[in-house]
């Protein structure tokens, strides 16, 4: 669906040139949900705007939905849907009119039925006569998505689709996005700030920082590759902490061990498997354990490992 090579964009400002995107290679397969993660200013939106024909790349090539981005932008536009972060509706215009105009501009055959089906599917039925500005946040976002889907694009771009929505609307929207792929095989390329969203929704993630893609993989792969599990041991006696660290450090699964007050914090590869042998090693050293907890890494850990910053701080 997307095959981009060396995509770059330089902006010229009063203070010189800014390299917003510095040579991005990315691929999205049909029916795939790909998440594009990165802090503000990392080049996320610039990349998205290039892929959706809103911004001309200064270097690189890309085929989007089977059309060349530079040579046939009109072809790209016919085959993609795009939902901007802030949406794209006039608050005074009734939802039905926006959908009708959109369908006419794309030349959708059987316009009325298509719009009715979309409204039914995205829980917008009965709202057609309401001005977009009178809809709730979740309804408006679903209207924006309906506008992006009117012409049945094989590829949908979503820019921060759930920003500003309440938790229930978010979960609801995730279901709709998953259904798109399952029912129509639509590929979805979405940017997000939310790590739980990327985790819950995406088949594959791309992490962008400083205008370059710095990590790529499935959420599970990324977590395994860059962070490892965190095992926190609390000891019966604080004096056992240092002996415990010395006993566990040589274990092949342990990447890092640090003493924390009356316990030890370990970064462990494949924690569940290593757990038993780690406890045995501790036992052999004569250290008494009070409690232990094993936590899987979050995408935030991944992000921190890759960029040296927390996504939350960076954002």
């Amino acid at each position, binding site marked *: 669906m997307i095959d981009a090579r060396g995509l770059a964009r330089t902006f010229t400002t009063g203070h010189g040139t800014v390299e917003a995107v510095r040579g991005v290679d990315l691929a999205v397969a049909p029916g795939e949900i790909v998440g594009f993660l990165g802090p503000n200013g990392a080049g996320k939106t610039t990349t998205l705007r290039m892929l959706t024909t809103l911004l001309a790349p200064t270097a690189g090539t890309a085929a989007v939905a089977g059309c060349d981005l530079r040579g046939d932008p009109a072809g790209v536009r016919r085959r993609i849907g795009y939902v901007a972060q802030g949406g794209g509706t006039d608050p005074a215009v009734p939802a039905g009119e926006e959908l009708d105009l959109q369908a006419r*501009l794309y030349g959708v055959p059987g316009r009325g039925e298509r719009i009715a089906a979309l409204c039914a599917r995205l829980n917008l039925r009965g709202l057609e006569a309401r001005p977009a500005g009178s809809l709730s946040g979740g309804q408006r976002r679903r209207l924006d998505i309906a506008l992006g889907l009117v012409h049945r694009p094989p590829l949908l771009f979503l820019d921060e689709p759930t920003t500003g929505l309440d938790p229930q609307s978010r979960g609801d929207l995730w279901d709709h996005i998953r259904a798109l792929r399952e029912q129509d095989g639509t590929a979805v390329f979405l940017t997000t700030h939310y790590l739980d969203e990327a985790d819950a929704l995406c088949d594959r993630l791309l992490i962008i920082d400083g205008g370059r893609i710095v990590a790529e993989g499935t959420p599970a792969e990324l977590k395994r590759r860059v962070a490892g599990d965190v095992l926190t041991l609390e000891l019966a006696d604080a004096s056992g902490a240092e002996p415990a660290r010395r006993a566990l450090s040589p274990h092949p699964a342990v990447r890092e061990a640090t003493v924390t007050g009356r316990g030890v914090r370990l970064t462990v590869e494949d924690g569940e498997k290593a757990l038993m042998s780690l406890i045995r090693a501790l036992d052999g050293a004569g250290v008494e354990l009070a409690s232990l907890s094993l936590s899987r890494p979050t995408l935030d850990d991944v992000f921190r490992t890759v960029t040296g910053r927390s996504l939350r701080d960076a954002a």
Partner: protein
Amino acid sequence: MQMSFTRTMSDTRLIFLRYLRQTLRSKVAVVFGALQPLLYLVLFGPLLSDLVQVRGFGAGGAWQVFVPGVLIQLALFGAGFAGFGLIADLRSGVVERLRVTPASRTALLLGRVLRDTVVVALQGVLLVGAGLALGLRAPAGGIAVGLLFVVSLAVSVASLSYVLALRTRTEDAFAPLLSAVTLPLMLLSGILLPMSLAPGWLDVVSRFTPFRYVVDAARAAFLGDYATAAVAEGTLVAVVLLVVSVTLGARCFRRENA
């Protein structure tokens, strides 16, 4: 080529209808839009009736001088404000949404301009109608020529207003620039009082502004003097302005990151 022309026309129609509905939806816009030209006639026109005797006011009755001026003013201000609508659409994301559709870029401009022009033209007809009721006497042909000037100016001014709105992108930057441009243009074009009343230096300065020629041409047309230098100059200026403005607007809308 044929294909893309047909496409542009049908997209222009769709965009035009969208914005026409937007205008009709706003009751205030409809009522005040109809009222505004009448206010000029009723609240300012009577001041002129005694000025007709003043040397340099020009031939014909006060209404024959005043109505063409207000017609051009309608185009300048009515269409000049068009950019505000585009800025609202930039903010709401409508512009970006439409730009990702295969809609013709030129149509995204022309559809809007057409709506603005229709509104100004209707106001112009209303103004002339009210003028006739108040005592304006002018040949039908002259009135028609005057309205053609209004239409052509409305297209030009709306296009330029959209260019300015795309460049500035916020009301805070757009509004002061708009007044900075339109106010001197209005004063120098002799819209309210003819420039023939002006001292020499002001008359010279006003000859460097385009609307002066169009206003003079519309006044000549209202007097029935069609075969005059004034009408020829006004027509030339209006056509050149039209071509330049629409070309500039279309180029601005076609730019990738506009």
